[in-house]
């Protein structure tokens, strides 16, 4: 499951702390919406929920930073960037390899059928 595209509403059911935790685990960029209406897009790499002044840290889209934003300034976090961890490269790779193996097996089977096995049975 990927959070890509999720725009959470902070309310009684979804706390900011939870959303920050999900955003911290997310490997794509997010958009941090601040209480003053400002937005910053970037990769959240750290969060300290138990610090005296809870905060997140991020590098912005240009790679500049780190920028530190206190929890109290955050209205919500939107999961706007592509999730690079959501790929299925392994699955695609295994499927391709299995097809190749099947083709090779079929080819070698045909080869064996057409060859004289010799006096000791091959």
């Amino acid at each position, binding site marked *: 499951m990927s959070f890509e595209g999720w725009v959470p509403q902070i309310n009684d059911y979804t706390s900011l702390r939870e959303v920050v935790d999900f955003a*911290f*685990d997310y*490997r*794509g*960029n997010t958009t941090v919406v601040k209480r003053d209406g400002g937005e910053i897009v*970037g*990769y959240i*790499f*750290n*969060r*300290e929920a138990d610090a005296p002044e809870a905060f997140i*840290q991020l*590098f*912005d*889209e*240009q*790679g500049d930073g*780190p920028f530190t934003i206190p929890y109290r300034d955050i209205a919500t976090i939107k999961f706007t*960037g*592509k999730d*690079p*961890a959501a*790929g*299925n*490269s*392994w*699955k695609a*790779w295994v499927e391709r*390899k299995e097809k190749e193996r099947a083709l090779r097996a079929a080819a070698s089977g045909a080869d064996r059928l057409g060859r004289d096995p010799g006096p000791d049975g091959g």
Partner: protein
Amino acid sequence: MSVPVSQMYTVASYVLQQKLRRRKRYPFVLMLEPLFRCNLACAGCGKIQYPAQILKKHLTVEQCLAAVAECGAPIVSIPGGEPLMYPDIDKLVAELVKLKKYIYLCTNAILLKEKLHLFTPSKYLTFSVHMDGLREEHDEAVCRDGVFDEAVEGIKAALQRGFRVTTNTTLFDGASPLRMREFFDEMMDLGVEGMMLSPGYSYSKAPDQEHFLHETRTNQLFSEMLSKPKRRWKFNQSPLFLRFLMGKKDFECTPWGNPTFNMFGWQRPCYLLQEGYAASFQELMDGTKWENYGKKSGNEKCRDCMVHCGYEATAVDHTFSSLKGFAETVSVTLSGKL
């Protein structure tokens, strides 16, 4: 065991110094990640899934050296990403050699042949080449055909020029003990100094989540693979760690043993889990709730982990914690019987 005497002496004297100072927790190997960029996208890797601006960034040599000084570990492992893609890798290695740090430059070796001219052979520098088995298994693990052959070319070129070369192998479920034994023979035939083995860790961000080993299966695989080991097989790691993987020893994780530094800071709590970052090494050591990690803690993320970055430090510490531990290590090393 294939570790040179000078390296063994350095590690032994460092560990004994820590014991004499009664340091409860001390680092053993610094995992220094100067970048996350890689020229492969292996299915079992959880290190490279980042947005583009993060993959383009890297640490400066000065940041790397400051981390090395802060940490103080005698061994510096440089993984990544692919460290040969780090633009200042030659400068970083030269500086670390000056500091007499034993360096394990962990590479997939695709770029090794063309970058060798940047380095000078030294007892302090080892190219630790990622090799997950024979050709078929390795190319499958790295999701690209031809990489095994490129790595072999790199290894041959490095050995020819007098560099120390080891291999590092991550094993996943489905690995064949017999094929692995053939792999050990092939690596020894190539002339590598030693081999490092570890079961894989199930990174939550790795694309492949189905092929990681669990403890019982790990014990079974390593027992079959390493039973009656050939005298010619050399392992560049603690023999007690190998015995642990075979189920012959029960160790607890030492999560602070291989602290990790990268562009985000000091990773909490270990190389494999990413639960936050400390701004300094001291903050990492003092501010991490270590009791929450390792098997005894009951943390489910640690339950099936038997990876070398958590347990090799335990094995080394065990060697120097008692005469029994020391005698066991010497006995296994001399007899070659795991």
